[in-house]
């Protein structure tokens, strides 16, 4: 089968592996974030990461090393801003997001030499992922999923109702900080797969598609994971065959999955 020869290429295999790992992580976190009405946090953190990536390029440091701590700090800042100032969740995200982009644009304008590199982070380039990046993506994604599995009961309780969870003995504030950190890690990893502009799609769309079908929380996590991994595998393949950008192709496949699952639900109701 000549058409499947591309599966033998190392860069395709690396893209499959890293993409599937990051997609699994994003999908699981996405269900939690969507149900907590924090869908836009991925968008906010990816925009902050844009500023941090620009800072890394500006200082000559490996950009993702700067983006990771900055994204984690930004996720805490969003939570504190939301809690202490009694802002709505999306308003806190909008503030942090706008500042992140502004910093990135100012640094890009000052440096004037790394716009090409910054552009690659904006739209991702999973087909150019290195073996080291694959290993980091797989290891970190696997570790984060283990942490989520360990905290599953508390996460489910707090996602359903924070106050009831608190009265059941769940340390909700601590849990929220852990989830914020995990989301920041997931966003930074996903930047390499789909780019700053499309990270939130990888978090939100598989989750929303899964919620059209799921009858239980566990069911939603499984469906989201299946949809996200499927979209990455098909997206990477299609991107190679058609010479379209991988990140955007992955997002469009996710969108078609969403349309199908929504249509199925709609027709079932009708």
């Amino acid at each position, binding site marked *: 089968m000549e058409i499947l020869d591309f599966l033998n290429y190392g860069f395709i295999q690396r893209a499959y592996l890293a993409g599937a790992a990051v997609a699994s992580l994003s999908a699981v976190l996405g269900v939690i974030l969507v149900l907590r009405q924090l869908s836009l946090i991925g968008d906010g953190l990816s925009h902050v990461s844009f500023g941090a990536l620009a800072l890394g390029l500006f200082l000559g440091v490996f950009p993702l090393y700067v983006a990771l701590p900055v994204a984690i700090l930004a996720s805490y800042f969003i939570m504190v801003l939301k809690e202490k100032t009694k802002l709505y969740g999306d308003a806190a995200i909008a503030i942090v997001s706008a500042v992140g982009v502004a910093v990135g644009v100012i640094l890009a304008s000052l440096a004037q030499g790394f716009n090409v590199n910054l552009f690659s982070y904006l739209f991702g380039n999973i087909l150019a992922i290195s073996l080291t990046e694959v290993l980091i993506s797989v290891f970190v994604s696997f570790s984060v999923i283990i942490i989520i599995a360990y905290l599953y009961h508390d996460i489910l309780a707090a996602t359903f109702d924070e106050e009831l969870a608190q*009265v059941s003995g769940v340390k909700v504030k601590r849990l929220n900080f852990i989830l914020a950190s995990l989301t920041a890690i997931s966003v930074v990893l996903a930047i390499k797969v789909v780019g700053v502009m499309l990270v939130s799609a990888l978090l939100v769309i598989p989750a929303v598609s899964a919620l059209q079908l799921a009858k239980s929380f566990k069911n939603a996590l499984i469906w989201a994971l299946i949809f996200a991994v499927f979209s990455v595998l098909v997206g990477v393949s299609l991107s190679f065959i058609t010479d379209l950008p991988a990140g955007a192709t992955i997002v469009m496949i996710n969108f078609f999955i969403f349309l199908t699952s929504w249509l199925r639900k709609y027709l079932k109701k009708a």
Partner: protein
Amino acid sequence: MEIVSVKNLTFAYQANPVLERVSFTVSSGDFIALAGPNGAGKTTLVRLLLGLNQGAQGEISLFGKPLAKFSAWSKIGYLPQRVNKFNPLFPATVIEVVGLGLKKRGSKNKEAANKALDFLGITSLRDRPLTSLSGGQQQKVFLARALVNKPELLILDEPSTALDPESRHSFFSALKKINQEHGVAIIMITHDSASAGSYAKKLLYLDKTVIFYDSFKIFCQSEEMSARFGGFQHLICHQHQG
């Protein structure tokens, strides 16, 4: 045994006083109806007891420990007023929701969740999505969730609001059974005076401060309360006359 002790509790939202020098105790086996007019501070009092609101002056002890040091939350079951306002898109089955009340998961705890459903006669709903249930069924599911750890104290905030008369009767009968057969103390905020008089043993009447706290029998025989409450006393006392 004294399980709740409140001494001189005072609380204000910004400059508006909500509770003023509230003091009372709850013992094992008590079934207390917490009544009072709108804005009397009933829900605030319960939220302060549960540590959901902060910033009050005075002392709260739960099971002999100051609230700040209390950590045995599995001894308390809580059914809030707004359970019917949960996210309608949340994909949870009945057994998942009941299991949320458990401190830790595990096969023994799964059994506890099944037992709680069985106790309230809703085992058949076990695998149904929560959103597919009626208001009365959902209320029972949340009661099962509050009972799943076999608590020693159950706190309910207007539990009968969403219930039709038939569901209300079966709901209160379940509460009576929990209180009488299992010795669980109950504090129940209610505007349902007739049901409160029929099922609860004591009345805590709150209007920013404690106006009355004793058994229904004493409330119903008190001329002072009769002069103060008139119609309310008549409505609440038909089960306790004589």
